[in-house]
């Protein structure tokens, strides 16, 4: 018995409350808060379990933290747990962000408040830089990729060019660049034969 005794939520309601609580603390990203709340405060998962689930959540399409909430809810109470955790993750923050959007839309229309539109434009510049910072933080992971850095940069650069500069539709770009990239990865992984 190597598994330490873990706490667990006693009901779907407890899941909902826990995920609402952590989502509302997550300014600019929920992931760090989720780790702290679920692993450290509530003790529902070990750090290793959390990392494993996160890596699976990141492989799947869709928002990572929403996928993670589905997986954790499913682990405890099946699909009812998944729905409770996802609802907790989304409902309260949705109400907050819609209220903000409503206020911003009205303020941006009124001529007496030109600074609101200005503030939103300034925040948009920051949002752009936040996304770029995420990309830069992921760059070291690409260096360790079995593809090798030159090939990885070529596929990444081709995607950037097709979407950012040529503005091609995403489905064609993913279908056009994805399979060759996966084929190269398949071949490289086999060629390396995992040193270990």
């Amino acid at each position, binding site marked *: 018995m190597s598994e330490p005794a873990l706490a667990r939520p006693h009901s779907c309601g407890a899941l909902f409350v826990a995920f609402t609580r952590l*989502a509302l603390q997550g*300014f*600019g990203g929920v992931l760090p808060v989720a780790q702290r709340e679920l692993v450290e405060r509530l003790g529902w998962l070990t750090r290793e379990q959390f990392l*494993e689930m996160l*890596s*699976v*959540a990141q492989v*799947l*399409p869709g*928002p990572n*933290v929403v996928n993670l909430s*589905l997986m954790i809810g*499913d682990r405890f109470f099946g699909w009812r747990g998944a729905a409770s955790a*996802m609802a907790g*993750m989304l409902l309260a923050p*949705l109400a*907050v*962000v*819609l209220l*903000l*959007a409503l206020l*911003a839309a009205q303020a941006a229309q009124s001529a007496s408040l030109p*600074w609101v539109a*200005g*503030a939103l*434009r*300034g*925040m*948009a*510049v*920051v*949002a*752009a*830089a*936040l996304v*770029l*910072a995420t*990309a830069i933080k*992921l760059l070291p*992971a*690409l260096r360790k*990729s*079995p*593809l090798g850095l030159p090939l*990885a940069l*070529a*596929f*990444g650069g081709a995607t*950037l060019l097709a979407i*950012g500069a040529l*503005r091609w539709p*995403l489905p064609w770009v*993913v279908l056009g*660049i*994805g399979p060759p*990239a*996966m*084929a190269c*990865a398949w071949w490289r*992984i086999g060629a390396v034969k995992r040193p270990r």
Partner: protein
Amino acid sequence: MNTVLFGPLGLGPADFAQLLGHFTLLSLLAIGGAITTAPDMQRFVVGQQGWLSDAQFSASVALAQAAPGPNVLFVAVIGYNVGGLVGVLATLAGTLLPSSLLTLHATRWGERQRESRLLRAFTTGLAPLTLGLLVATSWILFEPAAQRLGSALLAALTLAIMLRTKWSPLVPIGIGALAGALGWAG
């Protein structure tokens, strides 16, 4: 009241169906998070349909990042600005339903196959695409403000804060709101 329900543009059922359809399609392509599909959402909502301006699109994403909760809620703000609460329903359901159903079905399979060559080739091959999509997203959000020197300085400051300190993203967002309100950037 109608503006809140259906948005300011007077969209009809066919428009909402298109909105739902496009976001549903993008859901399964959202490798590396929903934000990577932002360039295609912008291409559709701004370029093809003309429902929002460049600046409105970027502001929608920014608003969601300033609020608590998962960043995917930027699709709700886009939905609201395009088509009110019905628009929210269309963009949010489209974005979340396909990927959530897939997640529920694929989770157990994925945990077993994590070391398999096929799954590793899949994730390894897609990682560079994710990175390219993130950089494209960043550029598309930045573009409406790109003419101004203040914007470039603000972006550089944000990058420095995020890469060199452990401060919360709320700090640069606050600075950005202030700089934009004073007319220095954006």
